[in-house]
């Protein structure tokens, strides 16, 4: 497939969005959202009903231009008469109501026929709630087979494919080549191993700049750090799922060794001193304002850094490797997905539209309009128009695509990972305490969310 699929955590993750949601919004969406939805109240068994096919999508926020792409694509689809039973209507969703509006609609069993989700567990949660229908019955294997297994795996559960990867969004480290050169480092050879990484950050610190710019007040950094460093002792996705199935304890170097690495960076003063005072994007701004040499971000934002700061200034690198598992070297990528809703009476028609989105010219149009790359074997590297995208394509060659955040339940991050890492920044923070917090978070989740625990036990990883 494309040599450049990206994984990712959305810059505005679902959690960010949900934090913005609220009870009044729920009420608003119950009206406003529903008014935009399909009028079908789908009798079970009829999956080819006539009428308007409604697609709720998202993506403008992290891939500007997505709305324009969807508008044009849907117009082409409708005018081409591909679906004789009715037209498609696309409805762009807001970040803060993407999930709340859908769940309100799902409860009423009156909503979109096709629904967008952020990938991994963020989509599977709605599968487990019964809001999503499996794709296998409607989308031919020939279409699914074009999609990389790494991408499909994120929403493959209980022997079925539930989400069709729509576009990838990768994460990486942006670095300032000029600062590297000033610190005596080779700007064209950024560090790839942990030792090289620590040496480079130390040299950058000596040169008088902030080595790594980050913000952790809004709690999202923890999810990025564990996804960069927390799976490097894993040999496969099953290792990521095992603690949540209750098979193993989240202890030992295999699971919590990454905390030691983060602590090392903190103890050596390689982050900005106000990490806990700044939000994630404020930490990233330290890079853009020329105060920090490295920061973490999503691929489209790194492209925008480069456009703002110059191609000779901004480079991109993957997170350094410290572990010895098969996932020690991986490409940090993930996919956003489209699904067919369980209450739709037009699933066959919805599937036809999803297939259409994976046509070559449509995938290329999406990339040209928004920079979003479709995870599809037919996506061509020759279509790329940014050196960052090209470089990311080179970096991912031969590497498994994986993003830990898409495999663990979110409460683990909020109640375990985030406080565990935040306390490392405190005067008496310790790895042992962090480990306790993460174990406690998993126990809490297992106690409170038994349905999800059952789902994890049924989760067979797509080989």
């Amino acid at each position, binding site marked *: 497939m494309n040599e450049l699929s990206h994984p990712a955590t959305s810059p505005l993750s679902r*959690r960010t969005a*949900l*934090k913005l*949601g*609220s*009870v009044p919004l729920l009420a608003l969406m119950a009206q406003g959202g529903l008014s935009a939805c399909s009028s079908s109240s789908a009798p079970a068994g009829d999956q080819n009903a006539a009428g308007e096919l409604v697609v709720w999508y998202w993506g403008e926020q992290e891939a500007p231009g997505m709305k324009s792409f969807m508008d044009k694509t849907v117009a082409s689809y409708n005018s081409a008469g591909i679906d004789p039973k009715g037209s498609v209507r696309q409805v762009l969703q807001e970040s803060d109501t993407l*999930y*709340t509006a859908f*769940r309100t609609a799902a409860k009423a069993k009156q909503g979109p026929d096709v629904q967008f989700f952020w990938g991994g567990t963020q989509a599977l*949660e709605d599968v*487990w*709630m*019964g809001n999503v229908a499996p794709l296998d019955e409607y989308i031919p294997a020939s279409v699914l087979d074009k999609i990389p297994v790494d991408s499909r795996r994120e929403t493959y559960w209980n022997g079925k494919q539930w989400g069709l990867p729509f576009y990838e969004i990768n994460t990486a480290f942006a670095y300032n080549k000029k600062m590297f050169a000033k610190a005596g480092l080779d700007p064209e050879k950024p560090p790839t191993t942990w030792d090289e990484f620590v040496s480079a950050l130390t040299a950058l610190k000596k040169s008088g700049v902030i080595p790594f710019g980050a913000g*952790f*007040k*809004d*709690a999202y950094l923890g999810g990025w750090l564990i996804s960069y460093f927390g799976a490097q002792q894993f040999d496969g996705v099953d290792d990521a799922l095992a603690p949540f199935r209750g098979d193993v304890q989240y202890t030992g170097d295999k699971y919590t060794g990454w905390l030691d690495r983060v602590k090392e960076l903190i103890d050596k003063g390689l982050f900005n*001193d*106000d*990490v*806990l*005072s*700044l939000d994630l994007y404020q930490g990233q701004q330290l890079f853009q304002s020329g105060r920090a040499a490295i920061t973490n971000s999503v691929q489209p934002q790194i492209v925008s850094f480069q456009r703002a700061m110059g191609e000779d200034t901004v480079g991109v690198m993957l997170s350094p490797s410290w572990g010895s598992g098969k996932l020690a070297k991986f490409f940090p990528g993930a996919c956003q997905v489209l699904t067919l809703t369980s209450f739709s009476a037009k699933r066959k028609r919805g599937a036809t539209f999803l297939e259409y989105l994976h046509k070559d010219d449509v995938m290329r149009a999406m990339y040209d309009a928004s920079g979003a790359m479709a995870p599809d074997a037919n996506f061509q590297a020759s279509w790329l128009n940014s050196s960052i995208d090209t470089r990311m394509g080179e970096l991912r060659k031969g590497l498994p695509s994986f993003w830990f955040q898409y495999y663990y339940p*979110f*409460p683990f991050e*909020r*109640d375990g990972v*985030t*406080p565990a890492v*935040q*306390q490392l*920044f*405190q*005067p008496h923070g310790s790895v042992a305490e962090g480990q306790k917090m993460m174990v*406690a978070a998993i126990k*809490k989740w297992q*106690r*409170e*969310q*038994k*349905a999800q625990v*059952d*789902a994890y036990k049924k989760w067979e990883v797509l080989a």
Partner: protein
Amino acid sequence: MRTRSGKSSRDVSRPYPRTGRRRPRARSLLGRSAPYLFIAPTGIVIAIVFGYPMVSVVWDSLHVPALMGETSFGIDNYTSVLADPLFRSALLNNLRLFTVVPVMTALAVVFAAVLYEKIVGSRFYRFVVFLPYVIAVPVVGIVFSYVWQKNGLLNQGLNEAGLSGITHDWLGDGRTAIWAVWFVILWQQLGFGVVLFLARLGSLDVGLIEAAQLDRAGWWRRLWHVVLPHLAGTIEFFVTLSLINMLSWVFNYVYVMTGGGPVRSTYVLELVIFNSAFQDNQMNLAAAVSVVVLLVAAVILTVQAALRRRVERMEGP
């Protein structure tokens, strides 16, 4: 009962002449049900607006979701909540915020008493004291986030003043973050107390103050012996309201300023509810925490009512 005229109140309230034998019986039936008919509309509205949600929340709290949309009935949500250290930590933080109430009340009384004296510029000072209260909490939260930052305005000011030794990462340190929030709540809510007390003082008999002044009572004695006793009811109201606010009205401050961090040091019960409901989609669990909050508020109101009865008994008829 009897009125001064000697007629029964029933006679007095008779709205129609006695014209037929069946009329008294009809009147009697109407008389008994009339009060209920009059309050019925209000009762129905209250039942819909308050009763239904409360019953619904309790009902939800007793259901536990299972896979693929199924639910089971039980008290599992309550056992989960009570076993959760985060819940206890959040409750403790709410209790910490309770300590803002006596400080705020004392300051509000003093400020109100000072402003009541009609000092020069008192109208301007009233405006200044009340101003923070009318600013939206998210705005206050964002502004103070910048103030409390490690490299924020406060620390910059301290550095400029040669006090760099006491600069601190106020919101970034788990030991000080909740108190930074505490201060912001005090700063913003104080104005409401001042205005409330000033309004009560406005209806105070000026003669009482003047008499105390003639008796050469100083400012503090007048405050203690004249002003405070007359403010007692208002203070009681303000304290009760503020306590309930500290329990169920501080979400905005925490959400905007800290998000519950760092290291969960500023979690409050409302944040637990919000996260359960809107991040984890655990509405039933959120309902259980809501019921606990409701019970704590009920305890506060019960204690307040008991104290009031006791005070009334002490004061006599």
